[in-house]
């Protein structure tokens, strides 16, 4: 029984070391997971709103193969992504990097918040002051009217 439990515990490790073949490249499950993670971050340039991982375009397939070959060769994810950026420019990245060209893009939510805050502040500041409290005579008259 204990031996069976032990073997059962080893199963996930087995699955992890198992090889898979994707687009003609054979690699371990761990490598495939890393390759998929890289491909998910890259834009397919043919159908520009899909990731390389999700696209059925020929170019996307070729790039998936290249990513997997680099993963099998042991290149870091960063190196593989910069390989793509060198060839296709930063547009290939689905998440734009933080750089002078994109400062405004990243600052937009904060600018919106500041603008909204300013509008709120001006709107509050310009509300007229509350009317002066009623005099005793006025209070008496009001009470009389409300009876």
């Amino acid at each position, binding site marked *: 029984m204990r031996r069976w439990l032990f073997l059962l515990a080893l199963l996930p490790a087995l699955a992890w070391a198992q090889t898979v073949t994707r687009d003609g490249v054979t690699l371990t499950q761990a490598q495939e997971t890393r390759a998929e993670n890289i491909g998910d971050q890259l834009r397919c340039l043919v159908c*520009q709103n899909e990731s390389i991982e999700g696209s059925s375009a020929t170019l996307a397939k070729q790039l998936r193969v290249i990513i997997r070959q680099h993963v099998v060769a042991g290149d870091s994810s960063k190196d593989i992504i910069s390989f793509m*950026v*060198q*060839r*296709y*420019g930063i547009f290939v990245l689905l998440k734009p990097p933080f750089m002078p060209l994109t400062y405004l893009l990243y600052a937009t939510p904060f600018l919106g918040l500041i603008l909204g805050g300013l509008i709120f502040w001006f709107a509050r500041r310009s509300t007229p002051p509350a009317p002066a409290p009623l005099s005793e005579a006025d209070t008496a008259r009001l009470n009389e009217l409300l009876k």
Partner: protein
Amino acid sequence: MSPLRRRLMFGLPLAAVVAGGEGFYIILRRMQQGDYDPHALPSPLIGKRPPAFSLPGAGGGQGFSNTDLLAPAKPMLVNWFASWCVPCQQEAQILSQLAGTGLQIWGIDFEDSAAGALAGYLAQNGNPYTRLAADASGLTAINWGVYGVPETYLIDTSGIVRWRYAGALTQQVVADELYPLIKQYS
């Protein structure tokens, strides 16, 4: 509420809508005229020499490598195309015209498997290419950052890429973009 405030409350949103509409109008008009393409990508190759490659000849033309592109006598074009590509046929006439003016155009036949297909394409659309190579695997194309055919690159006399156009060349693109650059780098 003061009259100024009331006027602002009406006027500011109106101004924002008018400004937005004007922006969209300008973008759409420029897209229609063809001088703005939201899908166009700047090529990282611009300002650099093409990456190392060596491709065999195709369609009876002589193949070439990156070293052949180091110092052309005059600015020249490298045109990526394929026999199966429809927009390539659309620009074929313009390429022939350009070749007729003495501009050197070197072709790279992209991912064509059947040799007969290329010969048929050249017979039908003319052969404007001074030299013609084949990139059967498409791997050189990836190193160039080619993401579809046709793509046309302008290479200056020091072998540096100065311009990339993705898609079929039109008379307007040639007149507005290509000719001024050829003049500049001649």
